[in-house]
């Protein structure tokens, strides 16, 4: 059923995201292998790390490369030594790698003007902006066809960047409900959003 969406988050300017200074997640009590640690680290820190790397390298693709490299390096570590300070380790290595990239690019400026000239302009054309706006509106239209609670949770999560806990605070739903609504909402969207919007 379609409905009007009216979401007014508490703080529109500050989507939830982790930074090197935000509190650590609890260290699991169960033991984990190296691969399980990396998988968990991907889950918990992939997005925050990319956001952090972007603030240094100012480019999403480069930030992704930096973070990919950071996680690969995590495989080299002794689980017992890094799991207690996982977040700190990840952000430190990510920062160092991002600075490496910047240093490399400085050399690039002085040695290879052709590559720089060939790089596409970062400014989007009016056509591109219109197309992106249209795409966002069409996706929102699909979201609006979800049951209201689902649509609200999905928008708070993906448009505003809220955590489950913050959505719970905003909506009065339990975090378990929020998780369930987002889980089922995403499944429906996967089935209903047409391929051209992917």
């Amino acid at each position, binding site marked *: 059923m379609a409905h009007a969406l009216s979401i007014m988050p508490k703080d529109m300017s500050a989507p939830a995201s982790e930074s090197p200074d935000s509190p650590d997640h609890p260290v699991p009590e169960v033991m*984990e292998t190296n691969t399980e640690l990396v998988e968990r680290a991907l889950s918990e820190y992939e997005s925050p790390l990319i956001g952090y790397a972007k603030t240094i390298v100012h480019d999403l693709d480069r930030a992704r490369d930096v973070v*990919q490299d950071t996680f690969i390096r995590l495989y080299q570590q002794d689980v017992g030594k890094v799991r207690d300070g996982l977040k700190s380790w990840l952000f430190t290595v990510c920062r160092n790698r991002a600075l490496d990239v910047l240093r490399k690019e400085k050399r690039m400026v002085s040695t290879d003007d052709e590559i720089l000239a060939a790089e596409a302009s970062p400014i989007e054309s009016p056509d591109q902006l219109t197309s992106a706006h249209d795409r966002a509106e069409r996706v929102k239209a699909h979201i609006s066809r979800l049951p209201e609670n689902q649509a609200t949770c999905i928008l708070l999560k993906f448009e505003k960047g809220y955590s489950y806990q913050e959505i719970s605070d905003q909506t009065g739903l339990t975090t378990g409900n929020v998780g369930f609504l987002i889980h089922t909402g995403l499944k429906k969207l996967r089935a209903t959003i047409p391929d051209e919007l992917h």
Partner: protein
Amino acid sequence: MKIDSNDPRITAFALGELHGDEAVEIARAVRSDAKARAAVEQARETSFELLGALHGEADMLTTQQRETVRRAGNSPVITDIASARTPIWKQPAVVGIGVAAAVAIGVFVTIGEPNTSGAGSGNGIADAPTPTPAWDWGEVSLGDLTAPVTLDPPKAPSANAHSVSSAPSSLPQAIAQSPAEYREQVAKRIASSTHEEGVNMKGFASTDPAWSDVAGIGYSLTIPQTSGVASWPWLERYVLRENKLPPRHTVRIEELVNHFSYTPPTRLQEGGFSGDIEICRTPWNPSTCLVAVNLKSEGGFNPRLMVSDDRVKQIRLLGYTSTPAVKPTEETPMKRASAYQSITNHSNYVICELVLINPNDTGEGFLPIVDLFFSDSRLFCGKIKTWSEVSADFRFASTVAATGMLLLETPDLGNLTPSELSRLIAQLETSGLSNKEHKKALTTLKRVASLLAN
């Protein structure tokens, strides 16, 4: 544990909303259950699309990047090294065949006193410290002596493992403390062995070095830190004593290379690790390059070689092919390598072959072709030298590797023929080798080239 794809924790995990033990539970399922992994990836893909549509971009890795990360933890080399494997001559089909089989080895891990299914570490360790008179090599069976077991029981990494002088309590320790003596023992025992009849050639693994694709997806190779040393004395035994080549597949390239000592690496150093890399045009194949990784490690971490997907099309490791794993027996009470944490005082000389995307790539410029890294230290290598420009160690090791490739009839040899091998050996001879072991080996190499030509 199986996780139902309708479990909301799947999505919560994909969105980074699960923490603590619950996150470990799903992480475990993702690694062990393809359905759980697919469900998590689906949730991530949908999130990626939603964020892309609503924000213009998503602060997420692409699916391909995430797979690259996972591959880094599953690279064939580390899987091989970390697997508990039984030497092939201890498999039922080849029991009793003796030393001939013992050169076709995998990696297995055992601990204990002599005579208790020991473990041997092979590597071309250059800087042999003090001899260890307390260790009785004669008490170790030839089979155990030639098995390339590499890991000691867990212990805190020593501040300076190189200066260990106390008597070893296990075979790996004895090997680590007296690598030169170990190599000498292996050579002596193989030379005096008489068990060569009844070799079951079907029992040997015949895996060829496999090419892995790099272009467009990147590649991270875990560099093996150890290898056996038995193949060189095995080769010499045939060539010098019987004037014939050993049967195909009874030598291993990495064992031939690592029977010898090399100049300890110094360029990349951190903690107990040091490493170096060099790249040159393959002298026998104009469309490929060779990369040498010279490393020494006190263990605990795995050095990696990141290969540029912008410049490299394919890579293969020369040697380190595996033998089939079998269940442990009472005779070989294997321990899983994961039960061990420290590898002490090991070094290894590893050679890879690369196919470049642009065959005319000179290697000039700032972008690395390969990047050796260990913890927070890294060493770029982007310049491709000619074979005559690289170190004498690399020229020697690549010639030995070429010999192994010819003996094993490795595919994609380019112009590598016995006469090309002779040319390389002649160049080594005229350039003057300062390493006495290398110089001495030229005699055997020349005989091998001559036998191969006939």
